[in-house]
C-alpha cells in the first residue's frame, strides 16, 4: 500500500533543517527500498493555482489556501500498513520542526 507523507513547515522554518541533513535522511530511507518518490518544494508563494470554471481557465498567483504552515515537500512510500508508514515518516527530519501528514493513497476504481 502507498502512503503519501506531506511535510508541512512554517515559512521561517523552511530552511531550519540543513539540506545536507535532508539528503542524508533521504539516502537512508531510499536504502530501505520503500521510497517511490521524494522531493522538496520551493516556497508556496511562488505557486500558481489553476481552475477551470464554465470552460474558462483561470490562474492565480500563490497557493490555493494561505496557511501558517505550508507544504514544503513530500515522500511517497510503499509500506505494509500504517504502522510501517508512520515509522518511516518519523525519520523525515522536519518532523522535529514542522508536521508530517500521512495519507494513504486511494487506488482509483475503473468501474466507478
Amino acid at each position, binding site marked *: *500500500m502507498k502512503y503519501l507523507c506531506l511535510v508541512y513547515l512554517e515559512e521561517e522554518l523552511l530552511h531550519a533543517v540543513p539540506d545536507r541533513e535532508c539528503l542524508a535522511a533521504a539516502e537512508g530511507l531510499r536504502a530501505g527500498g520503500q521510497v517511490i518518490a521524494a522531493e522538496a518544494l520551493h516556497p508556496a508563494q511562488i505557486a500558481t493555482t489553476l481552475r477551470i470554471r464554465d470552460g474558462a481557465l483561470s490562474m492565480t498567483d500563490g497557493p490555493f489556501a494561505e496557511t501558517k504552515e505550508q507544504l514544503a515537500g513530500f515522500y511517497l512510500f510503499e509500506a*505494509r*500498513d*500504517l*504502522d510501517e508508514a508512520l515509522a518511516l515518516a518519523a525519520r523525515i527530519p522536519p518532523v522535529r520542526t514542522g508536521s508530517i501528514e*500521512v495519507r*494513504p493513497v486511494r487506488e482509483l476504481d475503473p*468501474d466507478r
Partner: protein
Amino acid sequence: MMSDASAGAGVEIGAVVAALYRRNSRKVLATLIRLLGDFDLAEEAVQDAFKAAVEQWPRDGIPANPVPWLVSAGRFKAIDGIRRRARFDPLEGDVADRAEAVADGAARWDEGEEIGDDSLRLIFTCCHPALSADAQVALTLREVSGLTTEEIASAFLTPPATLAQRIVRAKAKIRDARIPYKVPEQAELAPRLESVLRVIYLVFNEGYSASAGDSLTRADLSAEAIRLARLVVELLPEPEAMGLLALTLLQESRRAARASADGAIVVLEAQDRSLWNRAQIDEGLAWVDRALGARGQPPVARVGPYAVQAAIAALHARAASAEATDWAEIAGLYDVLVRIQPTPVVALNRAVAIAMRDGPAAGLSLVDALLADKRLHDYHLAHAARADLCRRLGRNAEARASYERAIALARQGPEREFLAARLRALPA
C-alpha cells in the same frame, strides 16, 4: 466430538448459547476480524454463527469446543455471503477476488490457535493512537466490551447518532489507512500499551465520577473498565497493566463509602472504612506488589505512573484510620510521580500530601505557586484545596473566597453541594 443430543433440550441449549454469547462473543469476533480482515463483515459473521448454533445444536449436540466451532461457522457464513453477493452483482469483480482471498486466509485458521492473541490484537487496534481519543474509547467499548452504541452514548452523555458516526469513521480509518491488526512489537509496546491503559482508565473514571450531571457514579462502566484491565493483565502481564488493575480495584473498593445515603460526597478521611470492599482491596494490594516487584525487567523497566498511583492508593487502603495514614510515604511517592508525570494535577495532589506531612502552611505556598499556572486557574479542585488549607490556617476570609471560586467552577451537583457545606461551616 459432539456430546449426546438429548431430546427436548431446546430451551436448555438456548440458555447455553446465551451464556456462550455473553462470555465468548467478543473472542469469536476478535478471531473473525483477523480471518476476514474486516470489522463489519466479522460482526455480521458473529451473529450468523450464533444463529447457526441455535439451529444446529439441538439436532447435532453441543460441540466439545464451542468457541472454535463458532469461529468456523462464522467464517463459512461470511465466505458464503461474499460469494453470493459476487454472483448477484457481477460488476463487483473484486468481491469475488476478495471471497477467494478471505477463503484462502481463513483456511489457515487452525482450531488449536491461541484465541487470546486475537483479543489482544483487537484491543491494540481499537486503542491505536492514530485514532482520536474519543474514537478509541467508543470503539473499545463497542468491539471489545460488546456494549451497544446506545449504551455507550448514554454513558458518555453523547447523542447516539454522534457516537455511531464516531465508530463508523474509526472503522473506515482502520480499513482505508490499513491500521494493522496486531500486537505491537516489543520496541513499540510501551507507548502503545500506554494508549490502551489510558482508554481503560478513562472508561473507569467516567464510571467513577461522572464528568457532568447529577449522577456521581455509573458503576457498570467502572466494572467494565476493571474487566478490561484484568483482560489486559491476563494477556500481557506488564507492570503498568498490573498497576492500572490495582489502581482501579483500590479506587472501586471505596465506592460504597464515598457517598452518603442522600448522595452527598464523603471525603477519604471521613469515610467509614468498614464499608470498603475487602475482597477488592486484597486483590488490589496483591497486584500492587506484583507491579512493583516486577521492576527491573527490560524494556518496561521503569515504574510507571499507574503503579505509583496504585502504591499511593494502597497506603490509604492499608491505613486502619485516616489518622494512621502514612503521609510521609505518600508524599515520597508523589515526589516520584511528579517526576515521571509532571502534570499540574499531579503537582496539586503532591502539595496536598505535603500539607498532610508538613502542615498546611507548607502546602499553601505550593498550591499558590501552582495557581499562578494558567492550566490550574479554572480547576475547581485547586481552589478547593487552597480553601481547605486556608481554613486549617484560620484564614477564613481567604478560605471563603476560594470555596466560592471552586463552587463556581465545579460541574457536578454533589461536588458543588459538598463545597457549599464546607463554606457554610466556616466561622463567620
